[in-house]
Every structure is written in C-alpha cells, then in structure tokens.
C-alpha cells in the first residue's frame, strides 16, 4: 500500500522502513487456536495499533513478539533478518520493551527501583565491582539514576519515587510500567492496554506521553487499546484481529469504515 521505504503521516512525520515483520503467525494452546495465520508489519517510527474484541489474540501477539510465546508456525523478521528462536531476555536486548495488560510491576520494590530495572541492559559493571561498590559500579549507578530521574520528571511521578509500587493505585502503576519500559530506551515499545482503568484526564496525560516518546526519541510504538477515541487519534495504522484472524489493516479511517470491523468489534460507528 505504501512505498517500501516509508511514508509521511497526516501530521507530517516521516515513517521509515519495516522494522518488525510478522509472517503467517499461528499460535495454538492445546485445542485453542489463539492466532491464525496472521501477518503484519511495523515500521520505523510509527504508532501501530492492534485492536479487536476480547480474546481475539492481541496480547498473545505481543507475547509472540517478546518471545514469551513461540508460535507453531510463521516467522518473525526483525530489521530485515529472520529472528531465530529467542528467549524473552534476548529479545529485550534487541531494544524491544513493553508493558503488560495485567500490570506486571515488581511489587516488593520502590517505584525508583522498578524503573531502574528497565536499565538493566545499559548497566555493565561487573559483579565484584558491585559487591564492593567500587569504581564503575557507583559511577554507573549514578549516571543511570540521572537518566531515570529524567523519565520520572517526564512522567510526573516525582513524588512517589520511593513508594513501594504495591501501594499505588492502578493508574499510577500503569504509568510506572511505562516509565520502566522507557528506561530501557527501546527502539520498539509494545503497550498492552496502557489506558485501561483511566479516566479521560489521565488518558490525555498518557496520550501525551506516548506521543512525546514517539516524537522525541523516534520510538516505534505498538499499542493495544480498547478506547477507540485514543486509537483513532493516536495511531498511524491499525491492525484489527478477531478470533485470532486478521480482519482489517490500514489507517484509522480505513479501519473505521471497514464493515467487517464494524460488525465484529466496533458495533455502532464511532466518532
């Protein structure tokens, strides 16, 4: 549909080539076929939404990308190379970070520590140095802490940095999760329902963060969301899934007017 080396969005951003290409993915759990023969791609710098009814297989798709589920069939291509079987932590090293639908923060740790874990692939000091808190370990800790503090400022969570995350209300947890993902300075950010359980005001905040990340760092974003307002406003292209199949793929406007999508998901036409 678009030129192979990218396209320009309505608001004038330049979108690059394909960074992540999923080809004919099929994923089964015993008898349940969660994903059936799905192919789609994600391009450099774009905001790509994945939508669909509950149980359509959206989260499973993200799990396939993160390497947590291994599809029975199909291939994942990353930056023009076929990705072999990879452990999730190896995928993380490729610069793919994510948030989770059912918040997966580390409850026993403070907000600050949670976000710091996001930087684990950026910190290289050796075991001994850490054990003795000598030289590189301390310097590195401080340098990374400074980075994290920037993210904390950016997401406006300064006042809770030392709070254990277990005590936070839902919405703030989502924000901390985003912060943790951002701390990894990912090139691709996968967001699984980042705005569930938020009111409009908070969704606005979240939207602002997502757009800013995309803008400032050029981060590619894949986004699952049920709020059509958000999806339609933010995303450049949308994939629609239903019962594990892909039933639509295109710009928000194209999807919005796709009859199959309306029947399966949107119900009444959305404004």
């Amino acid at each position, binding site marked *: 549909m678009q030129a192979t080396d990218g396209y320009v969005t309505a*608001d004038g951003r330049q979108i690059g080539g394909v960074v992540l290409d999923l080809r004919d993915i099929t994923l089964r*759990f015993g008898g*349940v076929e969660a994903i059936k023969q799905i192919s789609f791609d994600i391009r450099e710098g774009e905001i790509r939404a994945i939508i*669909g*009814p*509950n*149980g*359509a297989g959206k*989260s499973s798709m993200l799990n396939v990308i993160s390497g947590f589920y291994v599809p029975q069939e199909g291939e994942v291509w990353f930056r023009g190379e076929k990705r072999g079987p990879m452990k999730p932590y190896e995928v993380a090293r490729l610069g793919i970070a994510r948030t989770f*639908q*059912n918040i997966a923060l580390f409850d026993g740790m403070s907000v600050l520590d949670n976000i710091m874990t996001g930087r684990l692939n950026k910190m290289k000091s050796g075991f001994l140095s850490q054990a003795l808190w000598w030289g590189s370990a301390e310097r590195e800790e401080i340098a990374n802490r400074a980075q994290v503090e920037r993210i904390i400022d950016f997401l406006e969570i300064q006042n809770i940095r030392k709070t254990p995350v277990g*005590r*936070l*209300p*839902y*919405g*703030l947890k989502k924000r901390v999760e985003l912060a943790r993902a951002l701390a990894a300075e990912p090139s691709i950010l996968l967001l699984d*329902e980042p705005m*569930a*359980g*938020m*009111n*409009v*005001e*908070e*969704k*606005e905040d979240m*939207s*602002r963060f997502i*757009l*800013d990340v995309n803008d400032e760092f050029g981060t590619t974003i894949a986004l699952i969301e*049920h*709020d*059509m*307002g*958000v999806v339609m*406003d*933010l995303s450049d292209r949308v994939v629609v899934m239903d019962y594990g199949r892909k039933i639509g793929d295109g710009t928000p406007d194209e999807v919005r007017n796709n009859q199959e999508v309306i029947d399966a*998901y*949107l*119900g009444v036409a*959305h*404004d």
Partner: protein
Amino acid sequence: MLDANPAPENLLEVNNIEVIYNHVILVLKGVSLTVPKGSITALLGGNGAGKTTTLKAISNLLASERGEVTKGSIVYRGEAVSELNPAALVKKGVIQVMEGRHCFEHLTVEENLLTGAYTRSDSAAVKQDLEMVYDYFPRLRERRKSQAGYTSGGEQQMVAMGRALMSRPETILLDEPSMGLAPQLVEQIFDIVKAVNEGEGVTFLLAEQNTNVALRFAHYGYILENGRVVMDGEAKDLRENPDVKEFYLGMSDEGRKSFRDVRSYRRRKRWLA
C-alpha cells in the same frame, strides 16, 4: 442528595468513613454516600481517589489488605454492617465484583461461575442462572471448560461479572467493570447492568473510570478526589457540569477534543486545593 425528606428506601448509607491502611496511610478522609434501593449509583474519580477502598470498606474486604475503617459507619438496610464478615454480607445480598478480575485461576470458567452461587442451595435455579449468564456472555460458553487462568483479560472480566450475577444479589458493588473490555462489550455490560437493575430490581454501586458510560447509565453520581467526595448529583446534572465535562468527559466547548491535541497547555482542575 440533600433532600429535605430523606428517602426511606435508602439501602446503603455510608457515613463519614475514614480508612487507614497499615496503621499509617490515611486514604479515605470522611466519605459519605447513600445508595437508594433499586438505583444505579456511580462513584467516579481519578486514580487513587479511593473508589476501590470505599467499595472494599463496604464489603468488609479491607482486613485482608491490612486496612481498617477507623471512623464513621456503614449501614445496610438500617443495620450497621461494619462488624459482619464478608460472607455474612453476601448472605445479606451484597456482593462485590473486585477490580482486576480476581478469578479463581485453577478452576474452570464454569466452576468459577458456580462458586458464585456458593450461598445458594436451589440447584435447579442455579442451573437456570448459569444459562442466563452464558446467554449474557456467549464467549464464556465457548470457554466453559478452560481454566480461568488461561482466558484473556476480557474473558476474565466476564467471568467475574457472571460470577457475581450467579449469587442473585440484592446489591452489586461493581469495581471498574469496563476495564479492559472491548467497546461493544462495555455497552453490553452496562446494558446488562441496566437490565438486571430494571428487571430484577438489583441495586448497583459502581466505581468507574469510564465516566462517559457510567453517567449515561447511572441515576446518581459521586465524584471522589483524594479520599473526599468533591461533588455529587443526579447523573444528568453532572453530565452537564462544565468541569465534569472537561475533566471527566474530555469535552471542551467545541465537542470532543482529539487526544492528539491535548499536548498543549492544559488547565488543571482545582476543586480541592
């Protein structure tokens, strides 16, 4: 609700309660609300406002989170209930659908629904209700034999909702029923709420972030900020309130704003300060 003649059919009254977690964290700072029989009352407010805490205080589920009600009283059908254990409260007809699903992971979907009917002994009627739930949520019928832990987020939400309906309650406390549900299903769930409310006279107190939908279906609403009720009124009045419109419905004078445009300066609400 400051009527001159207090409605006698107030099913639930929460009077000025304070909740403290872990002996030190004061979360609710004097919340009062009343839920008339047969109504749908919405509890709105941002993250951390204290909605969940309020609901848990009512259903006495705070103890297991090391929280306690330190002041105020909770009256259900004219009877103080803060000393009852949660099971006794369910027997009285109050059931809560907890935030974040809380399914029994290792039980199948069907077993989950059946535990909802734990307090009932009319097995024939239970069977009927099971069918009713499956009719409300056809997706669950398909997955009846799978372990709830392996169903998708939305499916789990349906299980939680269905499970509550199975107890044939008089009052349902619903905590964020729309969270994580596809738009059509949100409508559908609220339609179910409405149907159950109108058809069977079940009273609802629901905490909701999706103000838009909530205010469309509710009769009355309370807005909670920072552990206090900052505004309350008939749902239709609230819908018209300009502040509510801006902060909870995302409307400006020109209609709905695009999420892309919120990046510029925004006026912060200052109801409390």
